[in-house]
């Protein structure tokens, strides 16, 4: 035998032994160094968690009527484990179930596919939950369907029909409040990851949020999701390798979600919605005298009823609106398109806190104390010509009215713009005009800020709009953002417009040239426009309601809110929701008192008198402070505003209504506001019966609704 053979045998021997050493090394790594990972994996291997969802808390109005509750629905579910056990993977079973519940077989089949597996439909069609949980295929089964399947269990293995809680928006008394309530949607992977917690052993617990959970997507459902959600019950099962259950390791019961008591009064909410719709209808049947009697489009509108003392929102409505129940059980594509389409004027947007509109003459509530700050006496008399010269250009009154030399009060009663032009223009000149002194403080824009404009109110709803104050710095920023566009247009002109309308094209080109050259300049005209709520300043109806509430309550800038308290399902108070006021107005008590008296006179002898007169409103018994607004919007019909508070001598509520492209404040919104006050103070004919008012007493309830032992909620006493 060769030496070579011997040598190679030695090499082979070394090779074999090194392989064995490798094995032992790997064993050491797995069993000693990284043992913990595998011990944990083994534990997860052997257990499964079954989740019992908690009942979501109700959303109640201030008198305990449910605005959002849970309705029991008959839910048919199919067990995936049972489907897999069948020869055809459950195809035939799905076909039978689909036939009974009257749905297309493919739809039901798609619902039983696990998301992310081959051939599964994209969410939300596929099943996003645990494969060990029965998969719901319909929540609209009726008793007959359930009986068909439950009485022939052998034909429907693994199929269950159970009563399950489904969200329901009952719309008590017709109060829709869709934009305020919001809706629920399936949880996303991102939210799951963000909210999952790891226990000390590192295993992920799913107790916070489940794959199958619904989560508040917007509105109160979203804002108070954590309170309403509750905690799910978890049953930890031991399973074998086939997923068969061999025992129960641990079990916790679900904790139902707490109730949210809101400041909304369903009565008032329903009436506000009706009156808003009435105002819209009124506008649509009214011709615009300035535009050849073309009917108003009244594309949208909003109304806000605010508790002036606390900022609690008693009612808030927006038009167009929608049925919040369309979201329950997943919204259909057609419904979603309808909610978000331009053709329908975006019913999903609330005009009350998301819509931004020029406030028009209702803004004089801010210009008045600003003028006082600028040095104009409330007792003085001022000229009210039909037009006022600003740097040579004449700026007219609404409908070119002229009233001669009038008092400040009279100027507000008749809503004389030229008086305010004078205040603003002279103040602007004093401030340095086009070239302001360093550190100058324009009292008009300062006052707008003090009233909380240009900023979110802090309302407890997502996606609130801030509006804007078109002051010097805004103009400069806007010019910076747009000058490239205007400078290009100044060079090229508007050939596409010129083809059909050469005059307009020339005008647009001149405008572009001006904007390009010195668009940043805050002109005298800008200051004048600002004082009467025209131009580029925008507010939400909610912001204006808060402005009038502040004047009414003696100068406190309240934080509007819908939440009033969180209570347990047994009625125990968890916490009060009473956000602190945002600040106090820099206005003397005397000026505020003067303003209240003046606004009260507006409803008696001023521009707001008409609607109250026509409604035979008993102003003597229940005085109302009011201001009208008819904001002109370039290229559109005017915006109707009606801002009020009452009782004017001891204010409880501020009511503001706005109708976009709706015409005059007094003609369109005024009558509706008067009707809302009739409900708020129990007015029938000339009688004021506060006991018959909604809410009773002519003021918002001060105590919370109570929960009786049987679970029913009753109004506070």
């Amino acid at each position: 035998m060769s030496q070579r053979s011997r040598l190679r045998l030695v090499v082979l021997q070394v090779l074999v032994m090194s392989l064995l050493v490798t094995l032992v090394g790997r064993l050491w790594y797995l069993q000693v160094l990284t043992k913990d990972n595998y011990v944990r994996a083994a534990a997860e291997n052997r257990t499964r968690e079954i989740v019992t969802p908690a009942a979501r808390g109700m959303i109640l109005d201030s008198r305990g009527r449910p605005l959002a509750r849970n309705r029991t629905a008959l839910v048919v579910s199919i067990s995936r484990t049972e489907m897999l056990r069948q020869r055809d993977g459950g195809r035939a079973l799905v076909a039978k179930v689909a036939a009974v519940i009257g749905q297309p077989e493919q739809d039901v089949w798609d619902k039983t596919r696990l998301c992310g597996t081959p051939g599964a439909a994209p969410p939300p069609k596929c099943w996003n939950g645990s494969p060990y949980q029965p998969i719901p295929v319909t929540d609209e089964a009726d008793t007959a369907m359930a009986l068909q399947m439950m009485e022939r269990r052998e034909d429907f293995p693994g199929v269950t029909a159970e009563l399950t809680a489904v969200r329901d928006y009952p719309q008590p008394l017709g109060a829709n409040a869709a934009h305020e309530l919001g809706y629920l949607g399936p949880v996303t992977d991102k939210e799951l990851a963000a909210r999952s917690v790891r226990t000390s052993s590192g295993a992920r617990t799913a107790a916070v949020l489940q794959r199958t959970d619904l989560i508040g997507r917007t509105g109160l459902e979203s804002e108070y999701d954590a309170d309403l959600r509750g905690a799910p019950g978890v049953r930890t099962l031991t399973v074998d390798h086939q997923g068969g259950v061999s025992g129960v390791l641990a079990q916790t019961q679900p904790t139902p979600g707490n109730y949210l008591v809101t400041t909304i009064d369903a009565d008032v909410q329903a009436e506000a919605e009706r009156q808003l719709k009435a105002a819209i209808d009124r506008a649509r049947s009214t011709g615009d005298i300035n535009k050849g009697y073309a009917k108003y489009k009244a594309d949208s509108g909003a109304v806000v009823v605010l508790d002036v003392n606390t900022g609690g929102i008693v009612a808030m409505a927006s038009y167009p609106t929608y049925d919040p129940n369309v979201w329950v059980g997943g919204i259909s594509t057609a419904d979603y398109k309808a909610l978000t389409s331009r053709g329908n004027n975006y019913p999903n947007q609330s005009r009350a806190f998301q819509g931004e509109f020029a406030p028009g003459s209702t803004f004089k509530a801010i210009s008045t104390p600003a003028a006082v700050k600028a040095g104009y006496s409330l007792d003085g008399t001022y000229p009210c010509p039909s037009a006022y010269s600003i740097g040579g250009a004449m700026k007219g009154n609404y409908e070119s009215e002229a009233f001669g030399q009038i008092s400040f009060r009279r100027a507000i009663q008749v809503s004389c713009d030229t008086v305010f032009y004078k205040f603003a223009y002279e103040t602007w000149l004093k401030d340095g005009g086009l070239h302001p002194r360093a550190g100058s403080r324009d009292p008009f824009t300062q006052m707008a800020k003090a009233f909380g404009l240009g900023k979110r109110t802090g309302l407890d709803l997502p996606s609130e709009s801030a509006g804007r104050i078109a002051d010097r710095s805004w103009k400069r920023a806007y010019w910076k953002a747009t000058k490239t566009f205007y400078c290009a247009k100044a060079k090229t002109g508007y050939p596409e417009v010129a083809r059909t309308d050469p005059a307009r094209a020339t005008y647009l080109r001149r405008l572009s040239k001006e904007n390009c050259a010195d668009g940043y300049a805050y002109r005298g005209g800008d200051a004048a426009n600002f004082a009467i709520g025209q131009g580029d300043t925008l507010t939400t109806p909610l912001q204006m309601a808060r402005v009038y509430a502040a004047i009414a309550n003696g100068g406190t800038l309240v934080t509007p809110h819908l939440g009033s308290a969180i209570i347990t399902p047994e009625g125990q108070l968890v916490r009060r929701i009473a956000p602190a006021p945002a600040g106090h107005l820099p206005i003397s008590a005397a000026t505020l008192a003067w303003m209240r008296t003046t606004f009260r006179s507006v409803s008696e002898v001023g521009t707001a008198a008409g609607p109250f007169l026509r409604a035979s409103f008993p102003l003597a018994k229940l005085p109302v402070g009011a201001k009208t607004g008819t904001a002109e919007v370039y290229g559109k019909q005017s915006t109707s505003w009606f801002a009020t508070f009452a009782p004017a001598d001891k204010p409880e509520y501020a009511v503001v209504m706005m109708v976009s492209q709706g015409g005059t404040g007094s003609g369109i919104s005024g009558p509706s506001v008067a009707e809302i006050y009739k409900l708020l103070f129990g007015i029938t004919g000339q009688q004021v019966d506060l006991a018959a008012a909604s809410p009773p007493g002519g003021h918002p309830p001060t105590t919370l609704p109570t929960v009786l032992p049987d679970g029913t909620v009753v109004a506070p006493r």
Partner: protein
Amino acid sequence: MSVGYRPAPYTVAPPSRSARMLRSDSAVRRLDWVLLIAVLGLCAVGGALIWSATREPAASSGGDPTAFLKKHILNVGIGLVLAVVASVVDYRMLRAYAPIIYCLSLGGLLAVLSPLGTTINGSHSWIVLPAGFSIQPSELAKVALVVGMAMLLSEKRDAEDTPRDVDVFMGLMLAAVPLGLVMLQPDLGTAMVVSAIVLGLVAVSGAPLRWVVGLVLGAIVVASVAVQAGLLKSYQLDRFRAFYDPSADPKGAGFNVRQAQIAIGSGGFHGEGLFHGAQTQGKFVPAQQTDFIFTVAGEELGFVGAALVVALIGLVLWRGCRIAMGAEDLFGRLVATGVVCWFGFQAFENIGMTLGIMPVTGVPLPFVSYGGSSMFATMLAVGLLQNVHMRRYA
């Protein structure tokens, strides 16, 4: 030595039976006892592990919880008889029978591919016999291959020190036929073991280095061509892919690997105790009494027990190498070498796949896994080792 010394005549009684056994040249004295004890130790550990892995499902379906254990003991018994047979006949005589053994094994492999064959666990490797028995001819073919190739490669020993190219070529041809048949089943694991045997035999035969290098390179080329040309079944490729990334498809190909590692890793240093492995008793690891038997050792006996199994295998391989080294002729050395390569690679492949360092292929762990054919073949091989060992001075 003194000259002219004449020893006195003497007579002795014929030695008693026991004395005969204790004589230095008796079969019993010449047995490699370390090898035998290591093999029996592995069989015993295997019995315990098989029992643990199979008693629960059998009991819950009303069967005999010790059914697999009993059959394993029976297999060991039959195996030992075969080992005795293989060790009694002088291995040099085997050279004469080698062609017959080889042809018989080819017959078996062909029979598998004929309608007689049955598919179990994705491999068409079985012949089902009456009375609940089934055999896997590819296991027995390994024995035939070892003997046949050893014979060819040691044939021309008188004139030359090393096999000529023609001998190596003949030997490779000899191996190619069963290798091809095994690949047709397809039984990738056995094919890999056969390749390891061929490589080891050619190397130790003293064949020129170009053959050894050529074989290694050839194996790499064949493997890459097979993958490129799609000759492998998709499930085979999946198993290899799962080897690279077990988490890629945790419910499919990666499932076995993942579950096996969880079982072994969770055993820790001391193990969870026999019959107390949660993974094992919950049947989370598939094919656990056969290909994945090592996971039971890992989980229930811990690092201590698993390392003991590796050590026992090491002992067998070490004795095998010693026997090859001490063999009287090249034929004996090559037979022993072939067996060492066989056991060594198969054990490494089997344990390696449960530890996630080798791809999943269905080869049993010698002496430990449940299965008759494997037990008989490996016991025959042990008999051959003993045979070579006992006749090293004769």
